[in-house]
């Protein structure tokens, strides 16, 4: 009996055919194969989010409209109170950042539970890839998606309400922005596993994490006003510390309530948050995976 070896298709050599002595040997992937598979997973999971931006037009409309309406309401509150103009700027910056927070809680934290409800989660766990790569893909796609929304809200609101920024340290501002996003999405990756364990409560918890988090993060006012509560928020919530640092940097020289650390210190806090949240998300995922295998509950929907 002769064995016919088909010629590997171009670009798929690593996966199409590989003569091995046993199935166990076939399961032994080289580090390159593992890395390439995980990279493809990241791209594959980010793809629907990036492409979906252009395919579902109503998303663009609502994801820009909702933060814009909320921002406008708070701008008019400050106008009614005849507040100094920089406060309108604070609200606009906070309104832009809501796009990221909403994305983190609705499309990161709740995602694995949603996938379970749709029946996809067991496929994720069965596929030969690292689930962290799936989470990174979700985060990257969500980041691209939310950045367009946040930029739209920032540009429209700044133009409409006449916000003028005063920036001295561009590099630090950009650095703080990306660190804030890294910490936010790290938190989202961690919450994704926790929400999956909390099951039906996840949806309600997502609702709970909107207005209360806006309040303790000082979304529409300087967080120093909250005293101890603000300090606690700065130490655990990336939105709180990132927003405070960005406000200090984007409105340099504006009258600002003192009481929070300078931007450089807050950038260091953000670095710590990134590390902690990524480590915790990996740990939560491992715990979840172990528990799911033991209890066999991955395919039980709506629970």
């Amino acid at each position, binding site marked *: 009996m002769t064995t016919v070896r088909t010629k590997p298709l171009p670009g798929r050599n690593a996966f199409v055919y590989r003569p091995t002595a046993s199935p166990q040997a076939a399961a032994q992937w080289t580090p390159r194969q593992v890395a390439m598979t995980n990279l493809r997973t990241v791209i594959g999971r980010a793809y629907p989010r990036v492409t979906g931006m252009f395919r579902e037009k109503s998303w663009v409309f609502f994801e820009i409209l909702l933060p814009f309406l909320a921002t406008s309401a708070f701008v008019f509150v400050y106008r009614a109170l005849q507040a100094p103009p920089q*406060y309108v700027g604070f609200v606009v910056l906070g309104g832009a950042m809501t796009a990221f927070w909403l994305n983190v809680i609705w499309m990161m934290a709740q995602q694995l539970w949603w996938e379970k409800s749709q029946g996809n989660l067991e496929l994720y766990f069965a596929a030969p890839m690292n689930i962290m790569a799936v989470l990174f893909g979700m985060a990257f796609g969500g980041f691209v998606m939310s950045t367009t929304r946040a930029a739209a809200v920032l540009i429209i609101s700044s133009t409409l309400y006449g916000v003028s920024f005063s920036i001295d340290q561009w590099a630090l501002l950009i650095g703080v922005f990306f660190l804030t996003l890294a910490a936010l999405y790290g938190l989202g990756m961690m919450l994704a596993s926790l929400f999956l364990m909390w099951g039906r409560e996840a949806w309600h918890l997502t609702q709970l994490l909107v207005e209360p988090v806006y*309040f303790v993060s000082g979304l529409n006012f300087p967080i120093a006003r909250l005293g101890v509560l603000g300090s606690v928020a700065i130490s655990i919530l990336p939105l709180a510390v990132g927003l405070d640092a960005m406000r200090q940097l984007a409105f340099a020289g504006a009258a600002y309530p003192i009481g929070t650390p300078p931007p450089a210190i807050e950038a260091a806090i953000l670095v710590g948050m990134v590390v902690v949240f990524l480590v915790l998300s990996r740990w939560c995922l491992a715990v979840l995976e172990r528990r799911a295998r033991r209890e066999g509950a991955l395919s039980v929907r709506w629970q």
Partner: protein
Amino acid sequence: MTADGSPAAAPALDGLGSPRWGGFDPARTRGRGWTDLRRSFAVAVRLGWQMEANWTDPFLFFIYSVAKPLASALILVVMLDVISGGAKPEYRAFVVVGSALWAFVLSGVSGLAWMILDDRERYRMLKYVYVSPSEFLVVMLGRGVARIGVGAMGAAITLAIGVVVLGVPFAPGRIDLPLLVVVMVLGVAAILSIGLLLAAICMQTRQESWSYPEAAAGALFLISGVVFPLTVLPGPIQAIGLATPLTWWVEGVRRSLFPDGVSSIGGPASLFTQVTAVAAPTPAQIMVALLVTGAVATLAAAAVFRASDRRAKDRGLFDQTTGS
């Protein structure tokens, strides 16, 4: 017939069998009018409440229900304090009442629309609910009322915390009770009408309609004088705001609870004052305006709902799951 030829005993008949006298009860096909409607409504309210509340224990449910409106009120109170340093207690009452009432509006407006979406997309039961003998509109309203109940609880607790903790100046003896009762009845009807309108729209739309109620509520929030007086808005936007029943409802509740408080409609540069030459609307004007705008909203909602219902039946939309 039994084995010895005697007639079989009549089954026990309070369920689905024939009536005891053996004939046909035409009421079963005709329905029993108000009795059926009342029963359907009560069951829908009970079902809606259980769907809202049975996912956790009562204490946690209470925290979840109250946290959102309370946080919204606190954001505004801190904003107010940052600017005025606590020098404007009348504005504190203004924002606390506004944000508490808005929790009520949000739950009412989104309740009916989300009932359609939940049953169609998540539970996939809408078609069965629709073909059941219960009146569909009554079932919808029942489910919406259950959600309003949750919103009302949040609103009441927010108001209570506003008075007890946040120092909102409140004198129970000065409540204008007749005005409060009238505006609450008319206001709830108006909120349900807006919810019905959005539910009718969601019956026609495909995936991702979940944001529609929130978007509509966000737009109404901006033009209804909920947390800032309408006078800061441009004239044409103020005119649109005056045409919505929610503006008059919020003003009516504020006026009944805080007779000397800040008006969201009147004021030196407001459109209302320019047109009527009155500093702020009187209770009678508020009631009439709420009645008129609420009636228009109700009629419009009923017409749109009927048209949407016909079209959905015609095109099989109740049976369609769009995967959102």
